[in-house]
């Protein structure tokens, strides 16, 4: 099955369609960010980093939500496919959390005058990055893969607590990081052009994320099959 996934072009049609759609939408979002979205009156052009920063942040949280759900499913049902999904989402979550921290830092330098500050939002996001790192270390250092998967699933469930803390941090503590301007009970606090640009960028990043997640999941499936074949061959010797 994995071989078919990797080789038969017919079965990959929807995936290549997804890849093309994400490339087109990413290109469109870049055009909108630089040519359509208005210049922010307070922050100037550097505010355009917002259109990268926010989708990457939401996808970093979404990754942990996928890990949370698939970890529960893995502990309940014990099927490898849930663990595989958690592994795949963890790698993407790590990449997107790294991007959030980097774009936030680059954006913060001209606005706050510093690359980093121990602000509640920044610190809790850094903790998320370390949770992801711990997730990989746990898997790497536990010699029995099944036990490693169980420990990682527990970390994936417990670590999810950080997501609501990150979200609420700007309300619970006095922070340099601004309050939410999109998800608010009063509705988004931005001009329609900015909101349109943000939505297109968000959809582009979501498509890219789904594409990467499917690719990573298939790689993990193939890796499991390699392990299975090796185990069969070693057993036969």
């Amino acid at each position, binding site marked *: 099955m994995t071989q078919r996934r*990797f080789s038969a072009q017919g079965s990959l049609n929807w995936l290549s369609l997804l890849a093309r759609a994400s490339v087109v939408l990413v290109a469109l979002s870049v055009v909108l960010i630089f040519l359509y979205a208005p210049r922010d009156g307070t922050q100037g052009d550097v505010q355009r980093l917002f259109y990268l920063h926010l989708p990457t942040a939401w996808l970093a949280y979404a990754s942990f939500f996928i890990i949370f759900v698939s970890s529960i499913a893995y502990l309940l049902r014990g099927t490898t496919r849930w663990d595989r999904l958690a592994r795949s989402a963890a790698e993407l979550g790590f990449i997107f959390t790294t991007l959030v921290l980097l774009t936030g830092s680059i954006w913060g330098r001209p606005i706050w005058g510093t690359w980093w500050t121990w602000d509640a939002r920044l610190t809790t996001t850094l903790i998320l990055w370390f949770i992801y790192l711990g997730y990989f270390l746990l898997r790497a250092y536990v010699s029995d893969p099944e036990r490693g998967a169980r420990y990682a699933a527990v970390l994936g469930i417990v670590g999810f607590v950080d997501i609501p803390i990150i979200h609420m941090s700007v309300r619970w503590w006095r922070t340099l990081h601004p309050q939410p301007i999109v998800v608010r009970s009063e509705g988004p606090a931005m001009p329609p052009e900015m909101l349109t640009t943000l939505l297109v960028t968000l959809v582009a990043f979501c498509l890219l994320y789904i594409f*990467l997640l499917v690719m990573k999941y298939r790689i993990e499936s193939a890796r499991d099959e*390699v392990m299975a074949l090796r185990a069969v061959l070693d057993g036969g010797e």
Partner: protein
Amino acid sequence: MDALWYLFAGFFVTWLILGIYLFSLRRQIEVLRSELAALRGEHGTSDEQEVSPAKAIGDTTRS
């Protein structure tokens, strides 16, 4: 001018990291594809057949 430098740095870093990641996924696919072909040849399974990973690596459904 300074602000533009930060803006482009942010975009550059983002797309560089995502590009490197995509490249690494492609590399992993190539390596696994050749590894699978070699192992299947050794095992005697055809391309359409698959050895169940769950069966061989001792994973069981605890339902």
